[in-house]
């Protein structure tokens, strides 16, 4: 019911919205919860387990009951708290965990079975038969209990992530936070002031308190305006600091206002990482409910929430309101209700010594012990010394005192301390390095104490930054003492709720204690208290107080569970913003990408790169036909392949040769200028790291190539060896992988093609020679190297000419009876020739395993040499590289198949090795494979079983030399 008065709503801007299909109206500035209450809607959800009707409990982000689902399809968002959901035109919200409707929910029958559904009931009930758990029990339980559901569709809305830096981060913009921010701003610090609400002010927006002689909300707005005008202050509202991390890093979730988020390209939410040199935590406090029978009736809410709805949103949550508490807040609430013209049917103060100066029915030293009204509160029962009295009320404002919002101080393992004066946990100083606490979050509850505390905390933080805070001018404000009589649970029959969201009652916690789950961590897990989306914000302290009582210990001895990030729920989409799809795996394209795609080549991933698989021709129906044809180009005419993805590292310096001798097993300092050599690189533990060619372009200038896969690793390795092991060497490296486009021109007609294309004929460049050439006037590099076993070259041009050169090469090759070839043909060609890739050098093979043991030079030290000499790395019994060909009835080989003796069972005990690479060789007209076989070099000619357990295939293979094509290398050299 809306009442007169200004509040923080804009009555000139009505807003239409829908809840469960019905149309309602509220005002700009409303939350969904305040607008629903204004429309007389009290039931906003159903509880998790018992499906009890629930109304709103709070007015903030801690809300456990009023959770709704918004949006449809990919935009569907479950468990949105109605208390923080800003009302906007066209909002459509739906209630959750009910069927068929919120008013009549079939599973409310669970409530009748409550005696059987207590803590741990499913561990005890659904034990037999065992296989029923996964198939029957769990799915049924999951469907019956729960909150909102996801749509199952991928998110299409935009989320963002961003970084921010500041001298001082102020978390919370209530009186303490505002004072801290202004103090720091005046000292010249760069300040970020963050608050989860839409406006600054904190509790000042919800109370009738005055600051500096003005209404608190007005003072806060003026402070915020003053701060916003300063160049060294940034105010971030709608932003929740969700976690405190190492080194002054804070995670924060910013929700954009609906009208902003709806702009084209705008995100819904932004996840911030804020780097702060120092921080002030001024997060306030959360009011705790009192546990009594049926305290979950719609209409029972915290007293602070009632005041917030009254003062901020001008909504009376009831016509006939009772107030129950154990501090002066109960009286403040009653006074606010009276001032707003709402009838107060009872003011119940649990403190026996309490006095009342209001003209309302007053019960001192009494407690509310029950609540009636299934779909909304109708009456309460008041227990007093003289007996139980029933009083009519459609709303109960309850307060069990306040818990400081100290969650962030626990994120780095900090443990709070118990303060008996306020019957609450308070943060310990220094729990987060660089963070100081101020105001209600450290247990200072009066407005004046908050204002003072904010200024003091800022001064303290500024000192650590070497800044001097000006003398703070603390405004006049209320400074009443906090007088509390601890009250957790009212004794009596019936279920008294502690954790509203997970349906955990006082009885459940006591049951846990009886069953010896006495540790607070065990109790929590057994009862699920504090494990819902509110993470126990409303229930933790009360639950552990009940546990302490049940186990005969004090609260400090019982201790608390650990608060972990995030403070309030964060969508995974926000945390992972920018890291999906291309953000997770950026695409790297070669210069020939467009031309390859235009030729219809399917592009396959090679790390982040995309490379053509094959280039289909009209009439070809299977990739193998294309591959076979392309192999034929290289063996019979000339083929063109983009090899730019191989890592290229430019190495220069006086000690470049000596350095290469140190990282390669073989010698490069003796390589002549204009020559290329194949090099093998080991890890320090003696296993093969990578291989490739290295060209000497000048006396002090080399160009190393790495495999595509290991380019980054090799670069890192070179820097490591230089900076950490050989810092005196005069040598520098830079990656030029993306600066040069490089193409293989391979086949018997390769030289003819190049003679015609280059500005000057190739001449008599020897095999493994290199030199500078020009093509169309462009300076280029030519290397006579071969990965196919044919007479071949690689031609490199600056990347900007790559596209043009590829098109030209491909066209000229086609004129000579050849054409471009893809990764499939490249793979077949190298298997025929016994050349290895990372399928073979997979991290567990030594130089000796691949037949290159003699490449480790005896004349010098190199990385990996000492450990490669370990007896276990070269002695008999190791698996060695071999070639394999099928000789049985089955003609196909599969990579991954394992090798066994013909008469042996195909089990791991008899395993002799495995296939690493296979391909159909059109040159030989059969499959060929490479693999590793125990003592393989001595077993050429033997026939073994190759069994692929995964694909359920088996064939017989003959062992042979890895080099199956042109063993003497005549075709490469001629």
């Amino acid at each position, binding site marked *: 019911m809306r009442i007169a008065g200004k509040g923080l709503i804009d009555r000139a801007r009505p807003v239409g919205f829908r809840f469960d299909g019905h149309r309602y109206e509220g005002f700009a500035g409303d939350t969904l919860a305040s607008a629903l209450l204004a429309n007389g809607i009290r039931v906003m959800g159903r509880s998790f387990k018992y499906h009890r009707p629930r109304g709103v409990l709070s007015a903030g982000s801690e809300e456990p009951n009023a959770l709704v689902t918004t949006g449809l399809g990919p935009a569907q968002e479950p468990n949105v708290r109605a208390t923080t959901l800003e009302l906007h035109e066209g909002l459509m919200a739906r209630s959750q965990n009910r069927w068929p409707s919120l008013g009549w929910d079939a599973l409310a029958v669970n409530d009748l079975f409550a005696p059987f559904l207590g803590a741990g009931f499913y561990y005890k009930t659904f034990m037999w038969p065992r296989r029923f758990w996964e198939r029957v029990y769990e799915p049924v339980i999951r469907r019956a209990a729960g909150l909102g559901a996801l749509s199952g569709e991928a998110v299409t809305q935009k989320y963002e992530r961003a*970084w921010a830096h500041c001298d001082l981060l102020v978390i919370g913009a209530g009186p303490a936070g505002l004072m801290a921010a202004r103090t720091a701003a005046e000292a010249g610090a760069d300040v970020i002031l963050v608050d989860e609400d839409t406006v600054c002010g904190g509790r000042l927006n919800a109370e009738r308190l005055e600051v500096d002689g003005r209404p608190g909300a007005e003072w806060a707005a003026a402070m915020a305006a003053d701060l916003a005008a300063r160049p060294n202050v940034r105010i971030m509202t709608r932003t929740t600091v969700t976690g405190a*991390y190492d080194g002054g890093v804070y995670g924060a979730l910013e929700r954009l206002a609906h009208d902003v988020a709806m702009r084209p390209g705008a995100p819904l939410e932004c996840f911030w*990482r804020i*780097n702060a040199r120092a921080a002030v935590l001024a997060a306030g406090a959360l009011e705790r409910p009192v546990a009594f029978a049926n305290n979950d009736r719609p209409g029972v809410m915290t007293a602070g929430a009632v005041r917030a709805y009254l003062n901020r949103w001008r909504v009376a949550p009831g016509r006939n309101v009772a107030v129950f508490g154990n501090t002066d807040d109960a009286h403040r609430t009653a006074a606010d209700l009276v001032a707003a013209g709402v009838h107060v049917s009872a003011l119940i103060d649990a403190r026996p010594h309490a006095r009342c100066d209001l003209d309302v029915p007053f019960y001192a030293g009494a407690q509310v012990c029950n609540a009636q009204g299934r779909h909304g509160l109708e009456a309460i029962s008041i227990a007093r010394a003289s007996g139980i009295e029933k009083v009519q009320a459609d709303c109960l404002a309850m307060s069990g005192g306040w818990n400081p919002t100290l969650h962030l101080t626990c994120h780095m393992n900090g443990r709070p301390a118990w303060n008996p004066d306020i019957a609450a946990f308070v943060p310990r100083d220094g729990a987060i390095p660089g963070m100081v606490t101020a105001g209600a979050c450290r247990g200072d509850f009066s407005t004046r104490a908050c204002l003072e505390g904010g200024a003091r905390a800022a001064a303290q933080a500024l000192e650590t930054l070497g800044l001097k805070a000006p003398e703070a001018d603390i405004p006049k404000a209320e400074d009443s003492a906090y007088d509390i009589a601890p009250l957790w649970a009212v004794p009596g029959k019936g279920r008294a709720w502690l954790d509203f969201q997970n349906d955990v009652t006082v009885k459940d916690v006591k049951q846990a204690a009886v069953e010896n789950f006495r540790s607070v961590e065990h109790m929590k897990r057994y009862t699920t208290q504090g494990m819902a989306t509110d993470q126990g914000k409303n229930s933790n302290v009360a639950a552990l107080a009940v546990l302490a009582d049940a186990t005969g210990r004090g609260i400090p001895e019982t201790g608390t569970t650990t608060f972990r990030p995030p403070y309030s729920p964060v969508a995974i989409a926000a945390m992972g913003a920018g890291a999906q799809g291309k953000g997770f795996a950026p695409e790297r394209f070669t210069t020939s990408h467009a031309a390859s795609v235009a030729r219809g080549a399917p592009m396959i991933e090679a790390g982040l790169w995309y490379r053509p698989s094959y280039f289909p021709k009209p009439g070809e129906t299977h990739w193998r036909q294309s591959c076979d044809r392309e192999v034929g180009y290289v063996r019979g005419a000339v083929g063109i392949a983009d090899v730019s993805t191989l890592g290229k590292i430019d190495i220069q310096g006086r000690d470049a040769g000596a350095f290469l001798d140190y990282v390669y097993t073989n010698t490069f300092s003796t390589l002549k200028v204009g020559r290329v050599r194949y090099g093998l690189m080991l890890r320090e533990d003696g296993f093969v790291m990578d291989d490739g060619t290295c060209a000497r372009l000048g006396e002090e200038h080399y160009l190393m190539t790495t495999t595509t896969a290991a380019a980054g690793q090799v670069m890192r390795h070179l820097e490591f060896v230089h*900076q*950490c092991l050989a*810092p005196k060497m005069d040598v520098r490296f830079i990656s030029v992988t993306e600066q040069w486009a490089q193409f293989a021109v391979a086949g018997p007609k390769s030289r003819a093609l190049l003679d015609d294309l280059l500005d000057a004929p190739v001449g008599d460049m020897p095999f493994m020679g290199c030199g500078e050439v020009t093509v169309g006037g462009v300076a280029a590099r030519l290397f006579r190297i071969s990965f196919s076993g044919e007479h071949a070259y690689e031609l490199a041009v600056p990347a900007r000419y790559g596209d043009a050169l590829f098109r030209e090469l491909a066209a000229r090759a086609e004129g000579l009876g050849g054409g471009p070839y893809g990764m499939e043909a490249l793979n077949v060609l190298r298997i025929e020739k016994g050349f290895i890739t990372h399928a073979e050098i997979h991290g567990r093979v030594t130089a000796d395993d691949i037949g290159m043991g003699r490449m480790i030079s005896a004349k010098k*030290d190199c990385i990996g040499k000492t*450990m490669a000499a*370990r007896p276990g790395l070269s002695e008999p019994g190791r698996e060695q590289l071999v070639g394999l060909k099928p000789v049985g009835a089955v003609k196909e080989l599969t990579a991954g198949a394992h090798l066994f003796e013909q008469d042996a069972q195909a089990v791991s005990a008899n395993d002799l090795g495995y296939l690493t690479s296979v391909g159909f060789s059109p040159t030989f007209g059969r499959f060929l494979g490479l693999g590793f076989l125990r003592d393989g070099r001595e077993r050429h000619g033997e026939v073994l079983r190759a069994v692929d357990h995964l694909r359920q295939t088996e064939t017989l293979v003959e062992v042979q030399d890895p080099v199956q094509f042109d063993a003497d290398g005549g075709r490469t050299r001629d």
Partner: protein
Amino acid sequence: MRITCPICGPRDRREFYYQGAAVAIERPAPDAGAEVWDDYLHNRDNPAGETRDLWYHESGCAAWIVVTRDTNTHEVMGAELADDAKAERP
């Protein structure tokens, strides 16, 4: 977590590649013997407290640095270039 690169200043740890214990910069002589090499390559302390790690500023200046930090508190006490860290040793 933030690391102060001696060349670039304080940076987000995402810019760095983590290698492992800074032992890796003290490569033994080839003839130092199997035990020394085993210690160098494989045996690592697991300290509760101060530890020295090798990090690579991969998305920055490509410097290899030795970071001293506390495994109990996660505090980063300092960082120096690997070359400088070696030079300090006798």
